[in-house]
């Protein structure tokens, strides 16, 4: 067995990832804002190399005791692969249902539909936004529901057994005057980070 190369992240690289994400999440937020007719507050995205065991700490929006619902969706292109993980605080669904004019009662099934719709929109726009800037076309897998009304720790336990150290980009979306709180995490495999860093270095040159 060969030792995997050490993945590192310089300040310039981190800055570049942040800026690329900033642009991509702006495009995603724009689509969400138009769908919900509300203003999405854009944070500064957090870019870190983390141990998978520390993933819980990377998630800002959901508190330990909160019930969350989550979706993940894989993406791959030009030898770069990763997972997008979308976590919603369950208190978000009442307002999301209202703003999307969801008809009828807010049942478990209704929440599932809203969860899938909003996740696909945000994940898709973000992944494509980053891809466009890097001139990589990402193919997206099917979104998978990791759980509804669960504890954050339970979600993370099922979703991440694969890698140890990963590049994590975290975007914590909130909305102005509306109770919508969600986290989008982009996690890249270790091999992918090495390739991504190459592309980034080219941009920085």
């Amino acid at each position: 067995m060969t030792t995997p190369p050490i993945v590192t992240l310089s300040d310039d690289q981190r800055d570049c990832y942040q800026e690329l994400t900033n642009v991509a999440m702006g495009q995603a937020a724009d689509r969400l804002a138009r769908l919900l007719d509300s203003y999405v507050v854009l944070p500064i995205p957090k870019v870190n190399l983390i141990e998978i065991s520390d993933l819980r700490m990377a998630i800002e929006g959901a508190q330990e005791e909160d019930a969350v619902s989550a979706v993940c969706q894989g993406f791959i292109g030009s030898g770069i692969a990763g997972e997008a993980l979308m976590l919603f605080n369950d208190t978000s669904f009442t307002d999301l249902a209202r703003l999307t004019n969801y008809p009828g009662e807010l049942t478990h099934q209704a929440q599932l539909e809203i969860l899938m719709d909003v996740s696909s929109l945000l994940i898709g726009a973000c992944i494509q936004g980053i891809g466009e800037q890097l001139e990589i076309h990402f193919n997206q897998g099917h979104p998978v529901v990791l759980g509804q009304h669960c504890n954050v720790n339970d979600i993370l336990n099922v979703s991440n057994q694969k890698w140890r150290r990963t590049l994590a980009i975290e975007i914590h979306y909130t909305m102005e005057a509306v109770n919508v709180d969600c986290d989008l995490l982009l996690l890249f495999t270790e091999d992918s980070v090495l390739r991504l860093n190459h592309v980034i270095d080219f941009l920085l040159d």
Partner: protein
Amino acid sequence: MATNILICDDSSFARKQMARAIPTGWDVEVHFATDGVEGVQAIREGRGEVVFLDLTMPNMDGYGVLETIRKEDLPAMVIVVSGDIQPDAQERVMGLGAMAFVKKPIDAAKAEAVLTEYGIMTRA
């Protein structure tokens, strides 16, 4: 005389990208600021006749810069270059006196288009 251009963005990558997008053959002197506070200072000192301004920045954001320019009646033509492209953000900056709004990522074609459209660029 060279036009003083200020690029105000907290990301060094974004500043570099913006600097590269400035049309060649335009007689300019390029200055940089890494947040709104530095940006306002540079404009007060005459280093920002034309400002390329980011919105999301620490210390003072782009909205704060626009408000200060208005309040102090500073001589600056501001082009907002932003990743936040929501309709509300665009309306808000135009309401605060920005001359134009350009969506990130910026490139030479977009920069040239906006500079020409508003008659800002004068070729040497």
